[in-house]
């Protein structure tokens, strides 16, 4: 039986960016299932198994690719919640953003982000960045089992 790869969460409000990211991940043959969430609220619902995702099995994602600028709950807020919750803190978070503002970078690292990638304009560079991320976080890093919080079933 084949090893069930854990999912990768892609939290991205831009459909185009999401498509490019998925294309890039596919390009690099990342085999994990990609869960695309459109904003911070969905991400939190997913992680805590509530709202739309009530009753979801509590498997932990391999990593979270997080955009910063999103409607409703923004990326920094999601990051703060995750790193502030010991059950979620161990999930690697990669901030994927268009923002070159130093403040965002500094704030993200303060909150305990694992990687910060500025989305380059050139697609080729973007591919390269994603490739490295995929190789590093999805494949090599193993996350301890059974540490996702129980959502309402």
């Amino acid at each position: 039986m084949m090893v069930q790869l854990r999912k990768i969460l892609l939290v991205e409000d831009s459909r185009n960016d999401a498509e490019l990211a998925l294309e890039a991940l596919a390009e690099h043959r990342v085999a994990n299932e990609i869960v695309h969430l459109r904003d911070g609220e969905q991400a939190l619902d997913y992680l805590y198994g509530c709202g739309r995702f009530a009753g979801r099995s509590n498997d932990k994602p391999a990593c979270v690719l997080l955009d910063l600028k999103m409607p409703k709950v923004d990326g920094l807020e999601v990051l703060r919640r995750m790193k502030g919750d010991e059950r979620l803190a161990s999930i690697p978070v990669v901030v994927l953003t268009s923002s070159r503002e130093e403040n965002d970078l500094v704030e993200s690292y303060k909150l305990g982000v694992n990687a910060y990638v500025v989305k380059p304009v050139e697609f080729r560079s973007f591919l390269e960045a994603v490739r490295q991320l995929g190789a590093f976080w999805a494949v090599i890093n193993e996350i301890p089992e059974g540490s996702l919080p129980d959502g309402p079933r």
Partner: protein
Amino acid sequence: MDRGGGVVSATAIFVVVAIGTVVLIGWQLDVGVFKALLPPFVAMNPATAVALILSALSLEALRNLASPRARIRGRVTAVAVTLIGALKLIGLIAHWSSGIDAILFGSRLEAAAPFPNRMAPNTAAGLFLAGVSLFLLHGRRWLRLAQGLAFLTGLISLTALAGYAYGLQALYGVSTHIPMALQTAFALFLLSLGMLAVRSNEGLMRPLTAPGPGGATARRLLPSAALAALLIGWLRLLGQRRGLYREEVGVALIVVGAIALFSALIWWNARAIERAEAARADAEQALRKSEGFLESIVENLPSMVFVKDAEDLRFVRFNRAGEELMGITREELLGKSDRDLFPPEQADFFIATDREVLRGREAVEIPQEAIRTRHGERLLHTRKVPVYDENGNPRYLLGISEDITARRRAEEEVQHFFDLSLDMLCIAGFDGYFKRLNPAWVRTLGFSVEHLLAKPFIESVHPEDRPATLEEATKLSEGVQTISFLNRYGCSDGSYRWFLWNATADLPRQRIYAAARDVTDRKRSEEEIETLNRELQKRVQELAALNRELEAFSYSVSHDLRAPLRHITGFAEMLAKHGAGTLDEKGNRLLGTISDSAKQMGRLVDDLLVFSRMGRSAMTSEAVALRALVEDVRRELEVSGEAKGVTWAFNGLPRVHGDPRMLRMVLTNLLSNAVKYTAPRKDPRVEIGSFVESGETVIFVRDNGVGFDPRYAHKLFGVFQRLHSAEEFEGTGIGLANVRRIIDRHGGRTWAEGTVGAGATFYFSLPEAPEVFS
């Protein structure tokens, strides 16, 4: 009448009256002893006794010359005595009996043994002389005659006394007449002494009573010589009577004795004079000494001292300070008067004051008088004092003058500043009133000085400021200085002006000295500045808000503007991949152009963001080693492959002060520019160096590249300003704008030189001293 004379005359009066009275009592009661002392002696005639008493009374009247009644009494009695003597004398000469000496006790006179008692001729002569003398003594004119007659009286009585003493009746009796009684002789002698003594300070007696050595000699010699003569005579007679020697021998002895005795007297007298002289000389020397002492005090006084004769007001004395002050020696001055020395009206003034002092008999103070000296005009403070002689008459005029020119000049100088001062100056008393105000008060407040002096100063102060002002005044009176105290004073137009005070107090004199500056205008401008500052503060806040908006905007730009670009390139690439094989060459080229344009726009956005951040981001200031920084940038350029085959030259790159990150950006820009524009050259060369010029460190980057048209040099540092097309040289046109912005923020300047085809030099300067950057 001196004291000795008074005693002599009083004694004479008393004794003579006593003798006369006793004799009269003797006649009345027939007591022999009272009349004639001893039996063989003749008795005194009662008329003689009366005459003697009368003459004593006349003499008594002389002792009180000032009383007119006494003078009349004295003269009447004197006439009576003269008449008694005269009547008797006339009777004797004319062999006619006036009976004057037989009026009283007539019977008893006749019964007297051995013959009737009558007044002796010499007694009559003595009484006559005494009467005339006494009468004259009451007058003014015949004093010397009177005294001569008195002396003659004395000689008559003395002859009689000598007769009694030597036992020679010839001396007290005259031929066959009755002799002078012993008491009479004695009384007459005393009377003559009293007459000589009673006005002993005048006439013939003057030399005898004079205080000098002459008087002293006379007083000493006269009685002793008289006594000595009497004594010698007596001794001679005594010896002769006892038969010790003959008459001739007696004469020889008397001569020798007289010589001896008078020699002794003269020696004694000479010694006395000698001693008196020595004492006088001592006293004189002492006086000279004390005069010398005074002289040296007067000479060395710092004030001018002069003495003028009270009569003609000529200078008789002048001291050294005077010589120096007037510029005139005492030889030139002494003996002259003010008229010889000063202009007429001035001399008149001095003389008038002098006369006033002498007339008024008191010192006069002249607080300020101008006087012309050889050193120019001087101001004197003079005191003039009258000096009197022993009789209390003005003898000299003493003047003491102090030169107050310098003091007065200093006062005038201070007064000038006082009048000129733009600040208000005043002296106030602890009683709350101004004592003195300078003209600035009138100029500033519009009130007259009199108006301000007339009321307590606190009434001029703004009611709101009065408590604080009074508190400050109280502190001043306790010795605390006032520094920068503010209050408001009312002006004549009803407005108030702000005064800034400094003050100090003189506690013993109860005075406050204060200076006030009108700071109304300053306060107004301070308030204006305050308002402006508040407005500025508001602007700054507005600006900060704007800045925040701008930041939010650039955040959006950085995020939202880049996203579509990224999508364009991403999807173009995906399309290229997806359509590989189906797209022809043109299709591929079009896709490539879309992608390139999007990339170019991405770079523009990025550079713009950097540029805008450059203007806003915080700056540090630290020492930066330029050399190391330049090396670092060069390495980067070489690594990236941009700077291929470039010859580098670095010289004199110092340490500067600035933000290292920003300076790095400056150098990166300039060096990559240099590399970029030298690329077409076969031997590209970039030189980086520095020099110091007027307080600035100037750093330059020189290349031998394509250069530029110097006409457009001013456009180089503008945003999006390019002198070359993007086809020739890549670039967004923001790099040099960034350089300028960074250097501006460091307080430096940027400029460039170049010619087309002959390379370019870019300069930037940094201030030598590190500035405080905002």
